[in-house]
């Protein structure tokens, strides 16, 4: 019973921990598939987290919080678009700038508005997206094996968790079954082909970064309103960058992205579970070592185990109509 329970609990936290990664990873997918590199995922997520926690605590509404998180995140995405699409600036520089703006301004505004050392006030349960219990989950809990799986793994998550996992097939469908997706993939590979086909490269790329903004906004809201009950400074803690690593690991494909993010989430869950408990044969391991594990594995995976990841060909290159 114990081992089974530990497994279920670890998988449960794997799901919870991989949600922000997954949302950010899919966000990056839209942008990078259109040829706009975005290392500002982290910053947009952070700003989204702050905006959603602040709005939720002021207006006492989780939905208004989510809406504000998305709005601010999309706003930053449009800044990135303005710099890199309209003005053909360097996409890396613009992304870095957005990360700094988010890191600094969330603390300053948080302190100015709430005077709690950069935090937002703790959110009441009604101001958060609470866990949804599926019908029959409590009744079925006692059924061996399937019961806990249904009650713990499938049921009992916040709405945003389901949104994140439904976004995977949805993104796949958009990318490979719709006109928008076809054009999005094309503009990331050869914008000149899109231009000569009579489609606006700029508008297409703007739409892609807006999609990115929406998803990073949801990711931020999840961090501030589901995983935590309020905003804490630097609460994204590099998740935006792990999401980028997952995106490369997934070779810019939505279903792969889900598995990559689940893997990173699993490592995270594992490191939390193993902290403080002695390992068989090895004994007690310093907590820092376990915390570093996901990052070490990121390096190892990206360095050697994924084979050749070919990014969208026009990625990072501003489109200039040639003579």
């Amino acid at each position, binding site marked *: 019973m114990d081992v089974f329970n530990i497994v279920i609990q670890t998988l449960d936290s794997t799901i919870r921990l991989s949600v922000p990664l997954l949302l950010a990873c899919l966000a990056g997918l839209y942008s990078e598939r259109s040829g706009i590199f975005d290392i500002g995922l982290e910053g947009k997520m952070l700003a989204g987290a702050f905006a959603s926690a602040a709005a939720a605590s002021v207006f006492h509404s989780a939905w208004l919080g989510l809406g504000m998180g998305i709005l601010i995140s999309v706003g930053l995405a449009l800044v990135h678009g303005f710099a890199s699409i309209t003005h053909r600036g360097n996409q890396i520089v613009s992304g870095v700038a957005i990360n700094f703006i988010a890191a600094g301004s969330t603390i300053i505004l948080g302190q100015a508005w709430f005077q709690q050392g950069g935090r937002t006030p703790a959110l009441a349960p009604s101001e958060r997206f609470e866990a949804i219990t599926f019908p029959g989950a409590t009744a079925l809990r006692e059924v061996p094996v399937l019961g806990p799986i249904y009650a713990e793994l499938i049921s009992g998550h916040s709405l945003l968790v389901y949104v994140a996992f439904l976004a995977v097939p949805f993104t796949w469908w958009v990318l*490979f*079954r*719709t*006109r*928008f*997706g*076809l*054009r999005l*993939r*094309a503009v990331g*590979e*050869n914008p*000149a*082909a*899109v*231009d*000569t*086909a*009579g*489609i606006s490269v700029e508008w297409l790329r703007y739409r892609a970064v807006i999609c990115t903004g929406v998803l990073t906004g949801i990711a931020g809201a999840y961090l501030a309103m589901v995983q935590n009950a309020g905003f804490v400074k630097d609460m994204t803690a590099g998740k935006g960058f792990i999401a980028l690593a997952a995106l490369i690991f997934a070779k810019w494909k939505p279903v792969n992205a889900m598995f990559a993010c689940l893997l990173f989430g699993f490592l995270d869950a594992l490191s939390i579970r193993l902290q403080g408990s002695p390992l068989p044969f090895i004994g007690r391991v310093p907590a820092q070592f376990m915390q570093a594990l996901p990052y070490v594995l990121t390096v190892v995976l990206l360095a050697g185990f994924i084979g050749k990841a070919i990014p969208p*060909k026009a990625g990072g290159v501003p489109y200039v*109509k040639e*003579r």
Partner: protein
Amino acid sequence: MAKAAIELVGINKSFGPVHANRDINLEVAKGSIHGIVGENGAGKSTLMSILYGFYQADSGEIRVGGKPASIRSSNDAIAAGIGMVHQHFMLVDNFTVLENVILGAESNALLNSSIAKARSELLRLEREYGLQVNPDALVEELPVGLQQRVEILKALYRGAEILILDEPTGVLTPAEADHLFRILKQLKEQGKTVVLITHKLREIMAVTDTVSVMRQGTVVATRETARTTVEELAELMVGRRVLLRVQKDAATPGEVKLSVRNLVVKDSRGVTMVNDVSFDVRAGEIVGIAGVAGNGQSELLEAIAGIRHAVSGSVLLDGKPLDTTGPADPAKLRKRGLAHVPEDRHHVGLVLAFEENENSILGYHGQPRYRKGPLLDVSEILADAKDKIEKYDIRPPNPRLKTANFSGGNQQKIVLAREMEQDPTVLVVGQPTRGVDVGAIEFIHRRLIAMRDAGKAVLLVSVELDEIRALSDRILVMFDGRIVGERGPDASEAELGLLMAGIEQKETVA
């Protein structure tokens, strides 16, 4: 006279101080193939970009099918029934043929119905025009000839009545080019109008009904193709008389400078591309290697130049063997007097992002004369570059200009100047006039003859049979990795053509 498909009236277009198009008046008859020739920079591409909505004219009027048309974007052009096949294909490499065809012409927001519609439409186009291509193939896996066909299909799928082709044969083998011309004639029979932009006069003579010549932004003449000659067109293009046949005296070959013995070279897939090839090149002669592209000439050239290593066999330079088993050190080869003008100047010959003067010493930059201690001697390099610019008539004469901003012909001159001015004993040249306009071709040919007369051993590889025949003192024909015959410079085109197709070989075996 047939009705006009396109009329251009008084078109003007300037880019800053450059007047790219000046009072252009042009009429293209419906159902005809109309050629537009001119040197690089004569304004052909600008004119066609205006017609396709990439640029807007500063003044002037475009009429399509007799009605004034306002073409402000590619969309307007497509709507007016104009399709364009660009010189650099506008295809998404990792898309299938179908996906490329429907891109921008999808019937609704979901793809399924668009793809089904395109599939049946492609079948119809295949029946009508013989444009066969597998609709589910990935574009990157198709040979260039078929990629171009996809571009044509894209235009036809959008209902193009007028098809503009910009330098369509630059990337094609002669056989693929012939096939393209058959397709164009078929399109014409079906009532489509074709505008063919090229600087290859042979193509104009072979396929067009009428031809307009552009020079320095203006249309200087329009002729019926049947009533003009290559010589007249060349003169109109360049603005002076052009010698299409190179003047040269008989060669006086000296001793053997380059000797290739039983060379075997495989390509990256492990396919044998050069199969037991042996020949000599003597001082004071040009040996030409003819053949249809892809029969091992490129690999042979690369093996001699030290870019690709040989599996077996040897190469002797001045009687001393080169190390051909591993990737050789091209710097060492240059020191020993072997200069190489590569086939692909963009990827191998030049760094396009560099300034002209930097490219003009690339590979020789370690020589003491270009150095000041550990640093480059910039003033010496600039002086040297200016000298070469003058000698080789490189235009514009600005050694600080980025190499990418020179035309193809001038880029080629930069490479030739660099390699020839090092006074090599052996010069190995691949496709010296690919993508180069008539005036520059004449110049390059004269320089190659001058090298020969100065006692250099010249090995020339070209897929242009005319060029091989005009320059070579001996012609070797390559087919399927072997040298299948040697002929003198007076061998007929038909005879060489048979050899290139591998026909003579079968007869000798039988």
